């Protein structure tokens, strides 16, 4: 990084007017929805299996590539294509947990963690092999449409991402709270041995959770492809953002993931109106550290 270049960015500091500030808040709120969607699977896997899923970023990118193939080769709109991508991601994710990770979890977390790391490298190389290293993007007509209200203009795909964030986190919360599957997941999370004694098939439940996490990652990937662009190695960026969101919201908390995503989106967006887009990550990380110093357990985490 060129220090002189950074100085010129600092020199570009400007105080936004009220309209710019409101636009930034709305835009950040909507973009935060995308952050929440891409982090939800990471949060679930950590919350239930205590596994930091280092292949999560590649699952996001895989979702984007699947939507790209459907869109580019079959002309299926990416949002419609989600009806295929989401179950496909579940089908891919479920055996990863059942076949690869479940046997390792019993031997401690480190083997499983390293396995997900290995999977991420394998996935990146497979993406290059199959799709080349080229930058791709999902660009149906509405990807460049805008939403305008009260003088505020934001990309329509941010709005779509926000709706998906509300629906996905709401549905996940409801499933966990009000269904038998949710009870099994919570029981497996709290005490897998006791859950097993009570008749819960813990291994199957873990597989279900990982599959659902992959499904969420796939949906996040489609939204990333619509909003931005992606390459075989883009997953790392979304893994790191996901870490920030999950820790900010409280490890393993669904509500926290939503709030963490929205907070990060707003803070980065508002901060960028003062310092420029070049300082988004910097501002987000500073805010992340400040919030954690005040509330180390995150928004919805339990105090130690």
């Amino acid at each position, binding site marked *: *990084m*060129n220090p*002189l270049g950074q100085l*010129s*960015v600092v020199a*570009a500091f400007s105080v936004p007017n009220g309209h710019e500030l409101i*636009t*930034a808040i709305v835009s950040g709120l909507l973009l935060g929805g995308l952050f929440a969607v891409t982090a939800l699977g990471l*949060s*679930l896997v950590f*919350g*239930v299996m*205590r596994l*930091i899923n*280092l292949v999560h970023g590649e699952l996001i990118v895989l979702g984007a590539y699947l939507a790209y193939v459907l869109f580019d080769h079959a002309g299926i709109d990416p949002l419609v294509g989600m009806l295929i991508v989401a179950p496909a991601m579940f089908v891919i994710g479920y055996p990863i947990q059942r076949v690869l990770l479940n046997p390792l979890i019993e031997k401690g977390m*480190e083997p499983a*963690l*390293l396995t997900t*790391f290995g999977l991420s*490298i394998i996935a990146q*190389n497979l993406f*290059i092999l199959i799709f080349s*290293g*080229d*930058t*791709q*993007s999902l*660009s149906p007509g509405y*990807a*460049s449409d*805008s939403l*305008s209200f009260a003088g505020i*203009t934001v*990309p*329509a795909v941010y709005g779509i991402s926000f709706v998906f964030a509300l629906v996905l986190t709401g549905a996940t919360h409801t499933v*966990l*709270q009000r269904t038998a599957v949710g009870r099994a*997941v919570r029981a497996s*999370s*709290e005490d897998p041995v006791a859950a097993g004694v009570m008749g819960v098939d813990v291994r199957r439940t873990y597989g279900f*959770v990982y599959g659902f996490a992959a499904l969420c990652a796939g949906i996040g990937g489609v939204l990333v492809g619509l*909003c*931005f*662009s992606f*390459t075989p*190695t883009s997953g790392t*960026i979304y893994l790191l953002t996901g870490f920030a969101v999950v820790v900010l919201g*409280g490890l*393993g*908390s669904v*509500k926290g993931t939503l709030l963490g995503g929205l907070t990060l989106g707003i803070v980065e*967006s508002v901060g*960028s*109106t003062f310092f*420029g*887009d*070049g300082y*988004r990550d910097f501002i987000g990380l500073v805010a992340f550290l400040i919030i954690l110093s005040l509330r180390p357990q995150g928004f*919805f985490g339990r105090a*130690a």
Partner: protein
Amino acid sequence: MSSDTRRARPRRLLPLAASVLLAATVVLGLSACGSSSSGGSSGDKVVIGAAIPISGELAGFGSFEKWGYEHAVDAVNKKGGLEVDGEKKEVELQLLDDKSDPNTDSASVQRLISQDKVNAVLGSCTPPLVNAGAVIAERSRIPFVTPCEPLGAFRAVKEWEYAWAIFFDEKEDTENTFKMLEDLGLADQTNKKVAILHDNEPDGINFSKLWEEAAQKFGYDVVLDEQFPVAQTTFNTTVTKAKASGADIVLGQMVTPAAIAVRKTMAAQGYTPKVMALEKGDEPIQFAEAVGDLANGLLIPTYWDPSFPYPGAANLKKEFEADTGQTYSQHIADTTAAAEVLLAAIEAAGSTEAEAINKAIGETNMETVVGPVEFAEDHTATLPLVEAQWQNGESIVVWPEDKATGKIIFPLP
């Protein structure tokens, strides 16, 4: 109980994850994905190597570089190889993926020199990657010929002894947009306000400075100069500022993922300037494919087109498209030419000794597919530029008029 799914926080996991991520960075940084058989230089072969961006943000260039280098080497081998030490020797090309990362590039070039024992090295693309490899070759006193690095950035590093560059000069590039608008009588149809958007790589910083100078020289007003990190993906604020500035001309320097995000964000915010170029990023065909119709009208500084009167120019395009089934890029020409220059120098030297090859490169004076190549004292050979524009997925030369293959789209649709 809420929807919380957590158990007691495992204290060991976060530090472990951080360690693994760090290890990943190191491992990924050092490992290079070879696309050619391994093996060191032997007496019966001439071995040349290159680390190029097969993956990462600059992969859009790497695929064309790979083809260009392989094409030139294949052409020589089809003729029986190079006449070296009194006998014909086959040329072996070692290609590694630098993953668009300067650290990986320098490690890869080091590996090519110390492990694969290459006789000479061909360059990557863009200043951070090319310079990273060039300084390693220079230190090892191994000849290094590169395309794809603007010459000002190449000259700025040092006085080179073993590195040579064939490409365009950024000063000419940054002035050409303004010259073109004047020549075509379009300057007065803009408000002469310019917004500059660029990343913080040497290319971006250098272009920003040169655009400011060129704008002043041609009577334009730079109303915004916005800088961002090279990996930036979100450009809401940048585009909001550009739109608020009212600039009719947007000039950018960034990698392809950023260019795609900027173009999509501009469209989503309803900001359509009259003239736009997102240099480097908007050049690969992958950009045009990714944004579709939004590519129409974007300018591309162009040093080569199949219509140019250079030997084999039209044929090169046909060969590339027949080989790959993909749309060509001008990068097939400068990479082919760079490899041809190096191979010709090895044959002229009649030896695989580094000093002899380096001397022969300096004496190069040949017609290539990208134009005549003769190196100046500062080890650069300049390719003259024209302006092209994306029009329905094709790069069309629109200026100067005597080289134009189509009419300019103005204003931006």
